[in-house]
């Protein structure tokens, strides 16, 4: 179970990074239009890291 949750967290983290990189590419054309995408990417990275840290803490306790 922990493995699958870790996999989901990594997927979330990678997805967030992909979005951040791709939104950065669109910065010259978009300016303010990229804000929702950047917020999304940052939130995904934050949630991925948060979940991974929780999993790491649980593994440390086991």
């Amino acid at each position, binding site marked *: 179970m922990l493995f*699958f949750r870790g996999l989901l967290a990594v*997927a979330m983290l990678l*997805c967030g990074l992909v979005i951040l990189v791709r939104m950065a590419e669109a910065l010259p054309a*978009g300016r303010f239009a*990229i804000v929702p995408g950047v917020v999304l990417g940052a939130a995904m990275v934050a949630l991925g890291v948060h979940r991974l840290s929780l999993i790491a803490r649980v593994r440390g306790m086991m």
Partner: protein
Amino acid sequence: MPADSKKSPQPELRRSVTPWGSFSWGYSDVGADIFVGLGLVLAWAAGASNVAFLFAGVVYVCIGLAYTELAATYPVAGGGQYFVMRGLGDIFGFIAGWAVLLDFTIDVTLFAWTSVDYSSQLMPALVNSVHPWLHFGVVLGLVIGLCLLNVIGVRESTTFNGVVSALDVISETCILCFGFLFAFRPQLLIHTMQTHWPSPYELMLGTSLAIISFVGLESISQAAQETQRPASIIPRTSVSLILTILIFALAYSNLALGFQPWHPITDAAGHHLQFWQIFPNNPDNQGKAVALLAAQVPYYGAFAALYVPVLGAILLLISSNSGVFGSSRIAYAMSTSNLLPSIFQRVHRKFRTPMISIVFFSVIAVIELLFAAAPALFPAVSSLYTRFFHGENGLDFLADLYAFGAATSYSFVFLGLIGLRLTDPLSPRKFKIPLNVPMRFRGERVEFPIVAVIGFIGIFSILMFTLFTHPLGRIFGPSWLLLGLLFYLVYRRYRRLPVLGSQPRNWRTAQTEILRRAGELELMDEYVANVKASDARRAGLGT
């Protein structure tokens, strides 16, 4: 001796919900909302749908944090109405609870309706515009069926909720991963935002609809009542829940605007359409947006097209059921606080369920269904709606009221939070929303919550957007509140209770009992010590 005190003590709810159970409870309520909200917001906010979701999402984060603090501090199932009643008084508690009840009854109809819409993706006979009577009949059957199941006491189990929630989180993560990796074009997103930016009216309408993707946080407080050590567990699960829901809503809206469909989409004349353009003026598509998007995701879409409509329909049905169950539970809690007549506490002799409450609010849900389905069923009513209500359809009608009820109750919850921070600083708060200003109030050190003020401004503006842009919502929503308020005033006068004021209650004893029942004995000791220290300080000042 009052009749109530002769009764045998009410059985308490068993505290057996685990952290994952607590998460999945909330997720099965709030997670289903995006299945309903996405199509509606794309239809109205067009190129600014992601901005509408971002604004509503920021407000939602504030609401989520407020509920987390309140549910961890006061782990009782009454939810918003309890917090508001305790913070602001009985009459405001009633208004907040009555608005929540509107939301729960709409929840029953709206989610049963969209559950059928998602099913129609695999069973075209259920498409509303093609077979409105069949669609109506199936939705009505679902509402009646859920009512009967709740009367005889059959509820979906926490395990079932957990399995469906886990499947949905995995499914949505897969859809988004494949979508963002293979079909997302940032340039297309920016082009759409720049060329299809809506009018201010449409943006306000879209934003007010976006909030319906975040409704259901009452479940946090309901889970708190049944979670062991809620002060520790609830903040942990709530923060994950809030972030997950926010991410899914933002991700779907950004993806939909910058989405390159796997198979080209064309209109009747053969012109190519962007994905989001299939939603305006098409209520059938609006009701099953996530299934339509999932089917267009490269590689994964062929598989997703088969199961997402089924998964969506099940998740929505669970949410609909939580409306039937939740309305009876809130009415029960309001009745025990003398905000509603004691008839709502009466339980069926055989099934031990609040039958009158369940049937009463299910009947209201059926009446709402009749209003929503009438334009599709009767052409004369349709022309009436076109003339007086900007041609709003059934889904719009339900969404209007859902947004109104949510915005009203959440506005009061923020005020309740501020009130409780000022009037009850002695209760230990294991989780506090950030950004607080320390100050003194009535001789006690209190912390004024800035985030609650920001959240209140945000949700109040969404309430104003709802009243301004929803022709049906601005009539039926306030009418529901006024009718309820009238009933409340008559009831309180009849019972010789304070009509505009509050019944005297010993909140200190109540709080000690709440913490004891929750198993939060350390917090209970801390609370008792705070109370003693405060009393000693006041006695010292008096002498």
